[in-house]
């Protein structure tokens, strides 16, 4: 289903806001300082933080992980826990300082006047209680509803958040609902008592982009129609741009910039804000372009800062920055920036990433045979042939008839949402899962069979980097030991030589070689991911599968790792299968893109071609869901997809149930034909290619730089 584009409520001009009588803020945080104490000392999570949210206003609180944004949200809810303590400051809600209230008084406000929605809908609902009962709880607790009255109100709330069969959903248990439905149920819970303030802590981060687009749309509508104020905690500037009127940027527990969203994102004043905006991956057709990144990691404070907290990572820093802490400078309109050089830096953008090694990319031999050939790959999970008739099961189709190739030195992006089968494809290419049907040829050899026969060399040549950088490293082994293991397995006997190799690899991925003696918990997320990459490179592979390798990282670090991967490809002639849900990230690194849905490839082609019409309807929806900043051009109408589960393994097109351009019964009943063009672009759709080509480009700015 397609909905008309949502006009975002325009940001009021700064001058008008300044001259009109200022309404009293609903939430006014002043001088908030929060510490976490443990045996090793105290850590400042927030220092002298202040901001205000007016009635009906949505304020974004942005910053990378460790900036203290969630801590502040939890402090407002009085749910700090884990040794967190508010040292000083005021949290004025509707004129009352929440810190002066008793714990039961604050509890009575929670869920009633101040409601919250958290990051991960999959774990925020209690698996043992029905969804309806969980939505009803605050109504019964705060409003004195009888269970019967509450049940009626629950149905209304579920309809309001866009759930079409509220009766079924209310009676369901959480695991029976999709992620989008669960998040809607949580939003319904928050709305129940008609709160004045919503605390939204990364409410869409765990969701697929197409679902995220719908949830953001819903939240924007609800805030508008209920005149709700909201504190929107997020690391995603594109999302903040869609929903927030004002934004507060946090760094190292300090507010470094505040102002209207449009201004801050288009003309950021603080160097850190400039860096965040620059590092956001945007859709681009020029894949050789390096993403700007912010080097280093967030500073951790134990007391009041002695210098500018951002100075160690700031490209504009000079001596004066390192000798005294920065004060918040506020202009006439009330915008603030914590940088004494802000005026001097106005209009100066974050420096572009040094193209660095301007080495020519290793020339791939385009005519040689591809490195990886996947032919009619099929994978079914959970099939069971039992002697007991009631146990027999056909299984769930994860991958349905997928064929593609990866050339030498080529980066193939696989884009799709959760459940699309993209990770299964990656695992099959490393022989970590055995295909139910079809073949995977690696350098001409049948990978599955060779590995089963104990061929270690093929294993050595194909490696893997996972999403969760922490879980992929054994916490009890040092970085050096973790990297030593694949070398031993590869038959490198000389310990001294192995030690040198490890040091060399660490240097190669931009880490000091002394890191070999560190344990994983002593590293930041970005550093750990570098170690994982170094470990994957230890056996000198030809092919690396990156399964959401940058998805869990902050944008600043994400850019950094993407650049590293691109460099390694150029220098070592590596091939990647780059699996991600983020089509913007893929456009930065991939030569070719596969768009997968429900276990099938719906579109494949050179990156530049996939980003331009003709689109597969799913690709079009994916592209339109990519969050964008105002400076990137006019927002095109977003295509909002129903949150329905894909139906792989059926007769028709896997996307039929959610397709906004579904033709009719033919989509459900027959597998879509594949339209091919000469340049290797293929689209599997019942809609004729000419009709698909009539659609306007989602990114018109790409039209000019066609590669052909």
């Amino acid at each position, binding site marked *: 289903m397609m909905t008309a584009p949502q006009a975002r409520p325009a940001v009021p001009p700064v001058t008008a806001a300044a001259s009109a009588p200022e309404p009293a803020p609903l939430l006014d945080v002043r001088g908030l300082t929060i510490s976490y104490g443990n045996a090793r000392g105290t850590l400042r999570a927030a220092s002298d933080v202040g901001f205000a949210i007016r009635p009906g206003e949505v304020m974004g609180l942005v910053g990378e992980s460790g900036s203290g944004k969630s801590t502040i949200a939890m402090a407002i809810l009085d749910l700090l826990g884990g040794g967190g303590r508010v040292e000083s400051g005021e949290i004025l809600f509707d004129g009352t300082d929440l810190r002066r209230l008793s714990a039961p008084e604050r509890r009575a406000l929670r869920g009633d006047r101040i409601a919250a929605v958290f990051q991960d809908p999959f774990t*925020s609902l209690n698996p043992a209680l029905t969804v309806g009962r969980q939505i009803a709880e605050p109504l019964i607790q705060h409003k004195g509803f009888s269970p019967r009255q509450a049940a009626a109100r629950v149905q209304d709330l579920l309809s309001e958040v866009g759930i079409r069969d509220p009766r079924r959903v209310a009676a369901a248990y959480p695991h029976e609902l999709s992620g989008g439905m669960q998040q809607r149920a949580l939003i319904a*819970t928050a709305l129940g008592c008609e709160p004045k303030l919503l605390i939204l802590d990364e409410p869409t981060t765990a969701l697929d982009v197409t679902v995220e687009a719908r949830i953001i749309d819903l939240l924007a509508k609800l805030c508008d129609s209920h005149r709700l104020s909201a504190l929107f905690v997020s690391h995603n500037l594109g999302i903040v741009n869609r929903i927030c009127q004002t934004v507060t940027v946090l760094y190292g527990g300090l507010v470094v910039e505040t102002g209207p969203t449009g201004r801050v994102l288009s003309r950021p004043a603080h160097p850190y804000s400039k860096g965040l905006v620059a590092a956001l991956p945007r859709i681009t057709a020029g894949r050789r372009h390096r993403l700007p990144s912010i080097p280093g990691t967030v500073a951790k404070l134990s007391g009041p800062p002695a210098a500018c907290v951002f100075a160690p990572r700031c490209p504009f820093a000079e001596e004066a920055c390192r000798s005294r802490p920065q004060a918040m400078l506020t202009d006439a309109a009330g915008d603030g920036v914590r940088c004494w050089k802000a005026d001097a830096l106005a209009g100066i953008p974050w420096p572009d990433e040094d193209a660095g090694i301007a080495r020519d990319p290793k020339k791939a031999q385009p005519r040689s045979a591809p490195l990886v050939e996947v032919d009619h790959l099929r994978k079914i999970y959970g099939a069971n042939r039992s002697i007991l008739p009631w146990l027999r099961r056909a299984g769930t189709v994860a991958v349905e008839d997928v064929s593609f190739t990866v050339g030498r030195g080529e980066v193939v992006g696989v884009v799709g949402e959760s459940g699309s089968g993209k990770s299964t494809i990656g695992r099959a290419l490393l022989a970590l899962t055995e295909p139910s049907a079809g073949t995977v040829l690696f350098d001409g050899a049948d990978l599955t069979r060779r590995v089963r026969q104990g061929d270690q060399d093929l294993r050595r040549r194909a490696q893997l980097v996972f999403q969760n950088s922490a879980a992929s490293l054994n916490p009890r082994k040092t970085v050096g030991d973790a990297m030593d293991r694949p070398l031993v397995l590869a038959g490198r006997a000389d310990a001294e030589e192995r030690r040198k190799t490890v040091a060399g690899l660490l240097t190669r991925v931009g880490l000091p070689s002394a890191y070999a003696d560190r344990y994983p918990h002593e590293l930041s997320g970005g550093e750990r991911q570098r170690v994982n990459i170094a470990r994957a490179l230890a056996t000198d592979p030809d092919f690396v599968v990156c399964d959401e390798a940058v998805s869990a990282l902050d944008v600043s670090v994400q850019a950094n790792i993407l650049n590293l991967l691109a460099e390694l490809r150029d220098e070592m002639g590596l091939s990647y299968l780059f699996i991600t849900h983020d089509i913007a990230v893929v456009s930065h690194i991939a030569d070719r893109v596969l768009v997968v849905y429900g276990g099938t490839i719906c579109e494949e082609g050179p990156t530049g071609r996939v980003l331009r019409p003709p689109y597969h309807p799913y690709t079009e929806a994916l592209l339109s869901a990519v969050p964008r900043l105002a400076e990137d051009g006019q927002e095109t109408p977003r295509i909002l997809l129903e949150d329905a589960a894909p139906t792989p393994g059926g007769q028709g097109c896997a996307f039929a149930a959610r397709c906004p351009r579904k033709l009719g019964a033919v989509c459900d009943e027959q597998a879509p034909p594949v339209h091919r063009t000469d340049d290797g672009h293929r689209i599997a759709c019942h809609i004729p290619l000419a009709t698909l080509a009539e659609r306007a480009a989602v990114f018109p700015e790409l039209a000019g730089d066609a590669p052909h």
Partner: protein
Amino acid sequence: MLAYTLTRLVYLALVLAVMSVLIFLVTQAMPGDVASMIAGQFASKEVVDAIAVKLGLDQPLIVQYGQWAAGILRGDLGRSLVLEQPIAPILMEALARSLVLAVVALAVVAVVGIGLGVLAAVRRGKLTDQLVSGVSYLGIAVPDFFWAIVLVLIFGSYMKLLPTGGYAPLSDGFLPWASHLVLPVVTLVLMLLARIARLTRSSMIDVLQTNYVKFARAKGMPESVVILRHALKNALLPTITVLAIDFGLILGGVVVIETIFSYPGMGRLLLFAIQRHDLPLIQATILVVSAAYCLANLTADLLYAYVNPKIRHGMKAA
């Protein structure tokens, strides 16, 4: 759910069939010849052979097993050689007494153990937590026979409050029945409490850190609701498994405790059978104990489904 239960019952039957073969073979391999034991030390070879023929001991093993297994399927557990009575009523009586012991002891362990575990988790790291850990460890660290003897000395011999052993049927009145149960139950509770309390504590700590507990607090639910409604039900899964294993354990006979308190349950019956080399009684007792274990585990798995709707859902799909 029905399909799941059905599947489990099929597996249960398979397990018991395999068990019966094993039990039969193991008891055959035991030293000593049944016929000569019955005949006595001074009997002639002819007498012994006659007894063997009468008991069918001259038949090949497979035939003997077939007759034994067929009898069990008909509900005939055979005759005890020593007591010269049908086994079934003896066994059922002992099983009923063990069942009483198991139910009462486990009820106490479940209530006290889960309660202490929850308390310790909520007061994690505080004095209450350490106290609960300390006391429950004392229970598990000191062997059960020591507790049994200490309890007998204090409450039986010294204070003369409770009988030191034996069993009174319920038909003798509630008080005598209950008073005979107190000491064995308390000993069992001391033995089993620590594990349940520690297990509940650790899974409760995990659950208290989940997002849904945080969200329940964000909804403004009182702490009692957060703990009892949101956390406890999810924290009980591992506890249920261990409780079921403990149930099987007591039902199968806790030999030491039954011996010290002269409690005539399965443990003492088995001990008696082994000491007297009463093969049919040994076989039947072990088979019933195995069945009890399997049934206890099945009950635990069905309870799982009751507590966790996700598992229930999986069963529906099965």
